[in-house]
């Protein structure tokens, strides 16, 4: 969730970049590796050095105004290559937003079905567990009763005054007519611990070509960026356009197309946004209640549900106590390191289900198991919040908690195999890894006060019964996070022969 340790800026090759504004000039016709000037910075890092953030949702009612707005934003957009100032801005677009900007239908149709349908279609809500008081109709933003969000802006800054100035500069670009800010999502200053009191965002996949030179064990680049080979060695489907649709040669050629095409998806990816209100008091009440019943310390019960100690230390590495002196370990594996039964980290724990490492078939404990696991990874980029201004219905949490929560953001190239799979098959699934009636204790969808949390112990396990729901879904959406050139292309319209204002 919120990036902490792992959010350090990645190594960036700054030397070879031309000084031109990002995405200007014809796209290179060939070239290996990632063009970091074309990838939006949020893919490479969570901007850990910029502790302040604000997310804005805008509705586009007029295509020309929308394009002019995007064109104006371009010079502020932060690419991976330019991820070093005191401000950052990234731009994501919903499928509706792309349609409002009059991207050709042929291009709209080639996006993934999940993105095109959106997060709030009834079958998708059922699949993700967004039902009952989590249903989109109850959301504070992104639901059918809320204003449509066509453009999602992610603003980051080094300090609060800096963020205010940054926001001011962005808002000045919003045209008087045709584009309207409809959602404002402030965040809390980036902290070491999340609202529950746990270090978070520790386990992030290391991506070949993004964070390193493709070390052994890295996840394929195509899992997080469109246009590159994914974990199966193929390129995930994305909008490819005939060369004639790109007279300005803004876009990269598509190597895998049957006819000469340019790649609107290249260096882009999908951004999942989910807002979760968090009932911190209910979480700790539950931990204390079961601490009294089991005789374990409350902190340990809570840690067992989370899957790590508050400091971030792994329960598999240090089963009995939070070892603050211990460096936070992210190289461990559950089966290989002797925790197959979950006596250290329970199988049902949140962190273990969100990333089971070597826990699942084929052959738990093997490299093959890790390889299959790595086809379901997410780059998490979320931030926490104290207040959700658009929320008229924050009454679920206890008084002290009203409004606290997490803006979960994650980046992935295949919504179905990555984000949706993790949410449905690992977190929500009460039968995950052979369990019975055990959804994820923190992030799983289940009826309130139903579901059990088995806490393995020798010789007889504990079971925490009547699991409440500590998280309530308050908003969300699927967005396309285009490459910088693709953003320029979208801003300039399909007949990209017009001069784009800089």
């Amino acid at each position: 969730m919120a990036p902490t340790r792992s959010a350090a800026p990645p190594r960036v090759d700054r030397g070879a970049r031309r000084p031109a504004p990002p995405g200007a000039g014809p796209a290179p016709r060939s070239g290996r590796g990632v063009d970091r000037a074309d990838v939006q910075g949020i893919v490479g890092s969570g901007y850990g050095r910029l502790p302040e953030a604000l997310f804005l949702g805008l509705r586009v009612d007029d295509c020309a105004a929308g394009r002019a707005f995007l064109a104006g934003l371009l010079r502020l957009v932060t690419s991976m290559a330019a991820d070093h100032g005191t401000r950052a801005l990234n731009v994501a677009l919903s499928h509706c937003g792309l349609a409002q900007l009059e991207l050709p239908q042929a291009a709209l149709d080639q996006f993934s079905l999940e993105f095109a349908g959106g997060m709030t279609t009834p079958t998708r809500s059922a699949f993700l567990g967004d039902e009952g008081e989590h249903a989109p109709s109850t959301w504070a933003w992104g639901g059918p009763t809320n204003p449509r969000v066509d453009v999602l802006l992610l603003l980051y800054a080094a300090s609060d005054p800096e963020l205010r100035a940054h926001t001011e500069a962005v808002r000045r670009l919003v045209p008087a007519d045709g584009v309207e800010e409809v959602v404002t999502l402030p965040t809390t200053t980036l902290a070491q611990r999340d609202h529950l009191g746990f270090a978070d965002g520790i386990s992030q996949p290391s991506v070949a070509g993004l964070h390193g030179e493709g070390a052994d064990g890295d996840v394929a680049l195509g899992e997080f960026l469109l246009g590159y080979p994914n974990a199966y060695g193929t390129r995930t489907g994305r909008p490819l356009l005939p060369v004639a649709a790109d007279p300005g040669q803004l876009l990269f050629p598509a190597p895998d197309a049957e006819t000469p095409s340019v790649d609107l998806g290249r260096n882009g990816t999908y951004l999942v946004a989910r807002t979760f209100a968090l009932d911190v008091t209910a979480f700790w009440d539950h931990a204390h209640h079961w601490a009294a019943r089991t005789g374990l310390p409350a902190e340990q019960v809570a840690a067992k549900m989370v899957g790590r100690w508050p400091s971030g230390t792994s329960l598999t590495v240090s089963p009995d106590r939070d070892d603050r002196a211990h460096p936070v370990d992210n190289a461990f594996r559950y089966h290989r390191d002797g925790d197959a039964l979950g006596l250290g980290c329970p199988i049902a724990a949140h962190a273990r289900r969100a990333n089971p490492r070597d826990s699942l078939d084929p052959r738990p404990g093997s490299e093959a198991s890790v390889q299959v696991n790595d086809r379901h990874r997410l780059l998490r980029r979320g931030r926490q919040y104290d207040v959700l201004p658009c929320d008229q219905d924050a009454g679920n949490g206890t008084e002290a908690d009203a409004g606290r929560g997490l803006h979960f953001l994650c980046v992935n190239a295949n919504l179905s195999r990555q984000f949706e799979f993790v949410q449905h098959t690992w977190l929500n699934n009460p039968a995950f890894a052979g369990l019975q009636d055990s959804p994820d204790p923190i992030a799983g969808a289940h009826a309130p006060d139903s579901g059990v949390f088995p806490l393995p112990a020798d010789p007889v396990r504990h079971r925490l019964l009547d699991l409440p729901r500590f998280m309530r879904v308050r908003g969300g959406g699927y967005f396309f996070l285009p490459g910088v050139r693709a953003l320029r292309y979208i801003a300039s319209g399909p007949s990209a022969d017009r001069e784009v204002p800089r």
Partner: protein
Amino acid sequence: MPEQSAVTVLAPLPAGHHDRAATALADLAGPDRMILPFDRLAGLHFARLMLLDDAVSPSGTRVGASLLYTADLDGSADAHLQALADVSGPGLDRAFSCCTDYPTRPDTASRTAWLRAHRVPEAAFYVNTVGRGVSQVRAEARLRKGLEAYLDEHRDGLIDLPPAEIHAVLRRHALTDPDLRIGVVPARRPPLWWRARELVHLLAVPAVLLPLLPVILLALPFVAVALLIHELRDVPGRQRPDPATVERLRASEDHVAHNPFAAVGFLKPGPFRAALTRTVLFAISYAVRHVLNRGSLAGVKTIHFARWVYLSPDRMIFLSTYDGSLESYMDDFIDKVAWGLNAIFSNGLGYPRTILLLWRGARDEEQFKNHLRTHQALSHVWWSAYEDLTALNVGANAAIRRGLARRTLSDDEARDWLALL
């Protein structure tokens, strides 16, 4: 008799009756569910009714729509059809009355006869664990629940005992509870005659094939070359599934622990593919009967039952009941048994390109997933005898019973056994 059988009833639908049948099935899945009381049929694991849309074969002939009833059950298929006709006459009438030869004044005997007359054979039938009947599955689920509840209640008094003693306490508790008593005796093994028959089949097939081995080996290089030529000429489908169709399929998925899956398609034309398909199905049939019959279909442990059926000599349907979402099912296929899928499904029209039958194919993730979704058929009416249980759950519950049924365990054995709870 605890051995599992398959029933497949295929009834052609006269032209013009498609919509009427669709309405009937929608009613039977919804408001009229009660007139198809599958829960009254002992030994029935899963049942479904589906309407197969009409299609045009690669040679251009039109194939009409048809109705399909399938069931996975314990015991004999004939007895099941009789019982089905017995308890769900109105339901059968509702579903099948648009079929031309359906009895005009149906009674149990004529319905049974009609169902039997429309049975078609399965080319291969996979059972997750042969011999485990519905009543056993349910009893073992109750057993687990009972033992878990006992441990919740009495944990404090047990943890200082040696593991073997905890096992003994649980065994004594099970004996006092009529609901759990079944757990102290092992599940019944299949009868001797049945095991003998399986053994004979296990040995007879290789014995018959052995003399042919030199011929097979000599022919193999020629078959491989012919196969490569065919594969080069194959045209993989590039079609993406229609969003509205996917939405309709999704609406019927992921309501309980498992899902019904069905995929229909034409075989690639020509005698070579026809013969290859028959050969592969024969091999699958042998493998699932004797080797892959203990909880895992070549590494995939989420399938309860599966079958392949010829709808006509050039058109097949694959049906299965699997745990979790279709996405996870397809990922399992690709990650764990892509070669096996390729071997059979690459004989179907439009399948992603394979190399020598086993390679590539399903590994072309996106094309494979698009291929499955575009060939998927809706299971209009579907019923499960144990909605909340995955195949792994069923297997774990059986292991709990196996342990409890042993009079004594060593401490080490008991510790491993207690970890199941």
